[in-house]
């Protein structure tokens, strides 16, 4: 019996490690590619020079990376905050209140969430141009948040639905106004949902490069994803610098890995739709 248990656990570990190997291998390869030149067969840290100084490569200027890391964090937090500030009250209304056109609005949200944002790019570009908001962080923040909010409202509504009416009624009887009920009783009981949405929003912002590529022309307003996109999408006649891509790519991945280590326990509790994991 004990032996069976022991070997069963070993089997699980064995397969988990087996499945993990390709990913570990890829990360190691990324690192090796960034420091090893296959043609000359020499090791060098030259591809990591963005850590210490700005430089120019084949006509493209690369600023030093730390202000861009800062930009990324600010940009990510800004989108997360805006996303939560809009999505939480909206989801609360969809879950708890009855209002005219609720069913229609929900369906519309669903369509909005499913609509590929890329098809709206041209219109968004013109709108931002007429509003004079091109090359501003504001434009990217608004468009990026607008793209995420419909789904997040949908998911958060599921979490609100999970909190029983009795709890809210109880709060009202114990002396809370509707608003107090929301932040003293309901929100603390759906923290896992809110943190999930916050993580989605931050990750979405972290990975956002198309909007940045399109709307930001200024090196000082780049985020990490945009920085990476700068190397990949060079002009056709230029040779792509694989070493530099792998170096920036690896640098770009590290924070996500660290972030995941801290948030995975929250993420594991959540399934989309709002029910808690068993």
């Amino acid at each position, binding site marked *: 019996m004990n032996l069976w248990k022991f070997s069963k656990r070993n089997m699980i570990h064995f397969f988990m490690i087996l499945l993990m190997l390709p990913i570990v291998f890829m990360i190691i390869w990324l690192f090796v590619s960034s420091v090893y030149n296959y043609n000359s067969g020499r090791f060098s840290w030259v591809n990591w020079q963005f850590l210490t100084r700005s430089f120019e490569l084949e006509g493209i200027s690369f600023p030093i990376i730390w202000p861009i890391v800062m930009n990324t964090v600010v940009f990510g937090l800004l989108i997360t905050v805006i996303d939560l500030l809009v999505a939480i009250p909206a989801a609360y209304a969809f879950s708890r209140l009855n209002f005219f056109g609720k069913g229609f609005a929900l369906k519309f949200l669903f369509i909005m969430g499913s609509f590929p944002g890329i098809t709206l790019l041209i219109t968004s570009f013109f709108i931002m141009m007429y509003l004079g908001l091109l090359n501003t962080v504001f434009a990217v923040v608004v468009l990026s948040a607008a793209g995420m909010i419909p789904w997040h409202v949908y998911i958060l509504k599921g979490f609100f639905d999970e909190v029983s009416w009795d709890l809210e009624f*109880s709060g009202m009887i114990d002396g809370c106004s509707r608003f107090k009920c929301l932040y003293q009783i309901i929100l603390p009981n759906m923290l896992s949902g809110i943190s999930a949405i916050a993580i989605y929003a931050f990750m979405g912002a972290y990975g956002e490069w198309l909007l940045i590529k399109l709307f930001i022309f200024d090196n000082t307003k780049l985020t990490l994803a945009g920085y990476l996109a700068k190397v990949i999408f060079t002009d056709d006649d230029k040779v792509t610098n694989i070493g530099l891509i792998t170096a920036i790519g690896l640098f770009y991945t590290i924070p996500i890995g660290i972030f995941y280590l801290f948030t995975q326990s929250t993420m594991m509790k959540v399934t989309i739709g709002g029910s808690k994991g068993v």
Partner: protein
Amino acid sequence: MIKLEGISKKFGDTTALENVSLDIKRGEFVALLGPSGCGKSTTLMILAGLLRPSSGQVYFDGKMVNNVEPKDRDIGMVFQSYALYPHMSVIDNIAFPLKQRKVKKKERYQKAREIAAMLQIDQLTDRMPSQLSGGQQQRVAMARALAKDPLFLLLDEPMSNLDARLKVDVRDEIRRLQLKLGITTIIVTHDQEEAMAVADKIAILQNGKIQQYGTPEELFMKPVNLFVAHFMGNPPMNILKCDFLRNGNERVLSGEGFVYNILSTKKLSSEFKGAKVVLGARPHHIQISKVQQENSIPAKVVLVEQLGREKLIKVLLGDNENTTNFIRILSPTDLNVTYDERVFLTLDSEAIHIFDEETGKVIT
């Protein structure tokens, strides 16, 4: 004093409550009793202010409170699910209503501890609700409801999630507390035994209407209609459809498998002129005998259940095999009858109830 005046509540096209009026005196323990969907919980929600009545007025101490928010109504409430705040410890749960009243921290925890001690949960105060058993959660919910010394206590099926033995303990406890604090209490329940055990007065509801409002004895002994008669008491009252025959001074009930002569001392409502009635007799008001007596009804035993303190005997009425009218009788355990045995039943003439079949109203 609570007063409901002509309360109606509609949800879309369905009517949940229709013209409900109720008077509750200070210090009274009132049960709202009825089957599910009868409107008892809706009534409680309206009292709590969680629902607005479609029409009618609610008065607390003579003041109309229709538009008063639940938080300003000075009530404590225990929900069926207990609705303890899962993210707060027991003591924080109990102190929460006081916190909302901006009672100082030290004061409110002291008060919460007093209440916890009164409900014998003072050793659980640091636990989280998820670490408590059902009975303990119920006590915490009671403590939280009582913490702010409310004017009224509302209990919504507070015992339906407890097992049978615990239920009896808890209902005694609730009654003891209510008497000790003298707090006006309204309990919603579907369990007539529970209502009879704790309440000073019972309002029995069906289809959104109050059928009868009175003391448990009144409801049990003098039901005003068939619904109340059938709902109160377990096993339920035996109900037999029959014809009402007038023959000079004699009044005879004749149904499938039985004929019964109502003793002339029994008064009947003079309003009743019809011919179709329903005879109601409680299981313990029927005697079984092995010999025929005057005005007795022949029957055949089809089932004998030993309940411990007494026997529950099911008999088929009539002296031939073709009847389908059967009734249940509670009799002392020393009565020795067996399956298929022929017996004779005598009804206690003073204890029977006769209802108009058409309206269901009592005519005795």
